[in-house]
């Protein structure tokens, strides 16, 4: 009796190829979308010191950037009729290691506000005054630096210092 050879189904090679090509086309389109959108939408994230030095070097003209700093409570001015908000932020180190050395972000914000020699940046914004805007808050602002050196913000994000865990509450009392 002859041995019967088993018949095996082979995938049709041409068939698989068209799917691979289709897949590659789609993936390439997506990659193109990602790369082109990324380059158009990446922003520098700078400290106050870096803003000031880059501004001097003329690197920031026409660029949309993001910056962070500590809010000086005394500088907050708000005109309700025109919805114009202005305040000043002072430099806080951006490096996490430096922040750790200072004792954490809350401490670093406090030090920044108490230090009269810190570089500062004036900010203006048109719109409702953000809820969390207060002394020693961390402000993350997005916008452009005007020729006058003032930062015109399109967006303000705020984080309140007392909400950082690890800080000791005020009303500690022994019993």
């Amino acid at each position, binding site marked *: 009796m002859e041995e019967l050879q088993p018949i095996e189904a082979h995938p049709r090679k041409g*068939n698989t190829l068209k799917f691979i090509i289709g897949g590659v086309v789609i993936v390439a389109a997506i990659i193109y*979308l990602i790369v082109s959108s990324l380059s158009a939408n990446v922003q520098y994230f700078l400290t106050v010191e870096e803003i000031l030095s880059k501004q001097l070097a003329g690197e920031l003209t026409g660029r949309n950037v993001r910056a962070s700093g500590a809010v000086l409570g005394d500088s907050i001015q708000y005109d*309700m009729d025109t919805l114009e908000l202005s305040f000043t932020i002072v430099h806080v180190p951006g490096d996490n290691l430096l922040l750790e050395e200072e004792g954490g972000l809350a401490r670093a914000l406090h030090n920044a506000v108490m230090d009269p020699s810190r570089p500062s940046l004036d900010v203006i914004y048109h719109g409702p005054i953000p809820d969390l805007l207060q002394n020693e808050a961390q402000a993350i602002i997005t916008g452009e630096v005007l020729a006058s050196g003032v930062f015109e913000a399109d967006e303000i994000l705020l984080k309140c210092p007392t909400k950082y865990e690890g800080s000791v509450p005020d009303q500690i009392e022994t019993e």
Partner: protein
Amino acid sequence: MAPDIGFGSLLITLIVSIYGVGAAFYGEQKKKKVWILSAKRAMSLVFPLLTISVGSLAYLLLTNHFEIVYVSQVSSLSMPDYLKITALWGGQAGSLLFWSWLLAGFVSAVTLRKWNRDQDLLPWVIVVCLATLAFFVLLNTFFENPFISYWQTPEGITTAFSQPPGGIQLFPRDGGGLNPLLRHPGMIIHPPMQYLGFVAFIIPFAYAMASLITRRADDRWIQLSRRWTLWAWLFLSLGLVLGARWAYDVLGWGGYWGWDPVEISALMPWLSGTAFLHTVLIQEKRGMFKQLTMVLIILTYNLVIFGTFLTRSGLLSSVHAFSKSAIGPIFLGFIALNLIISLWLLNKRWITLKSRQVLTSFFSKEALIILSVVLLLGILVTSFWGVMFPKISELVTGQKVTVGPPFYERVAAPILGGMLLIMVICPLAVWSYASFKHLGRLLWKPFIVSLIGIALPLYGGLTRWPAVVAFWLVAFVLAVNAFEFIRRTRVRRKNKQDSLWDSIVHVLKRNRRAFSAMIVHIAVVMMAIGIIGIEFFQTETQGTIPVGGELSLGSYTMVYEKLDIFDTNDGRNVARAIVSVNKDGQIIDTLYPRRDFYYDSNQPVTIPGVRSTLVDDFYVILVDWKVVSSEGATFKVYHNPLVKWLWIGAWVFIVGVVAATWPDKKSKPLPVRSQ
């Protein structure tokens, strides 16, 4: 007392989990059932044990034990009881414990099913589940202990669980209170729902791993985990929608999704989870793409862990993120270990999962599903890159950068449009092959109807073509589903001469899964309508007006009637404006936008007044006011068309997924005769 019980229970859970892993492993290796049963018992214990821990913390919160550091940080005397409960997950340590508790709930629930059949999978399911739980409990035990107290020592004030040398326990009179932004009904439901979605994915992952380890190449693990997967996916989806709703209700920026890194880290497992849900379907129907299915569940599980790592490590600057913590590196280590083990396993079994079948046509159901998976993964990669690129850039160039929402929107929009297009064709496509004649026959009628989706917007004055295309696709999907349902009902009626009602019921029952899917896709389309409305057509205005003054936006006018300022009994000062909304000269509504100021945390929260209809939302924020009322107040007004459909779609979504999980009437088992 309570902290001791709470922490003790936590520690016991850790020991029991580690024991369970060891016992299951040992019992499997030595083929000794008694050890495996013992491990199963251990797994059923973890939920009651952690309930004791969570209960202790809840007790401490409700009874104002501010000597406990966590209670001080998230609670205060002025908070109502329900908020004190939500404070359980208001901070890092408590939310981690809450996460572990929910995880334990799912893990213990798995022991409840009858394990007579799949005995070979059981030990490995136990190992994976308890090892994961042990990791999270370990974090709470050694790094983020919610039960530590304040102590006064000669060096100063420190925090510790047990008394340090020379330390006296401190008893603060009040706590800092929950961040006012979190004092909202959204806090009751959004984090729990989100966490439920995250942790529930351990179950399908554990079953998948068990299947790989036991060298099985069949679908049994999918059958076993199918309902778990659906519920996990439902919870995760709802978590995202609830977060969006909360942002819309409270945060006062008139939006619902900010492409914030923490939002994205919740979106990523949802994307791969959705892809997983769909490739599972292909595996069941055609036995194909088993390798891809495995990759997707491994990816989903690890993205869940990665997501919670991103949120908790302090790595990201985000309005959502917890502050920096030491647990970051440990998380990374855990993820790395997970990936190495699961991918190594998958690699070993790679060939066994290979399917003999091949894709045959671009328009077969499986090809279209794979295409949608590619698109979902495209959004996933985009999101991942958007979040990680700044970190990588900083490492490489030292320059900090950020990526804004426009990046994500530009990439996601066309991809989502593509997915709408697939949703048009896929319900009509069949498995294995595609006949264009067949598809064409089924598509031409819905296509004609869908042109309403182009005609109506153009008639309404719409000119932005992406929006017109989007509306057309939405109409098309709805039409396709409607016609398909009618067609099947008609066929049934013709064949069986049933009444219309009976036909409908029969068609629904026989194709329950298909129709649940149809409902879910329609729900997604409704949500798409809401998103298109608000993304493309939102308008806004702002201004300061005196009492009796007006602000106009589109065809609406709002009139500032009055301002009331008063204290509430839960520690707030409320400034509430009364504003009437007019259209075509008639008053159609009265709104109460307000600003709450919380005394204990010195923080204001803005709550908008919103008039919401199926057509649009009229959204008013009280920005500021002068106490002398004649000077007036400042308002910001948004007009958000169609956004209500986003929330309606979410409800329909729930209906669809629950319908998919509905148990089938079990056929009577055939009697087995022993020889």
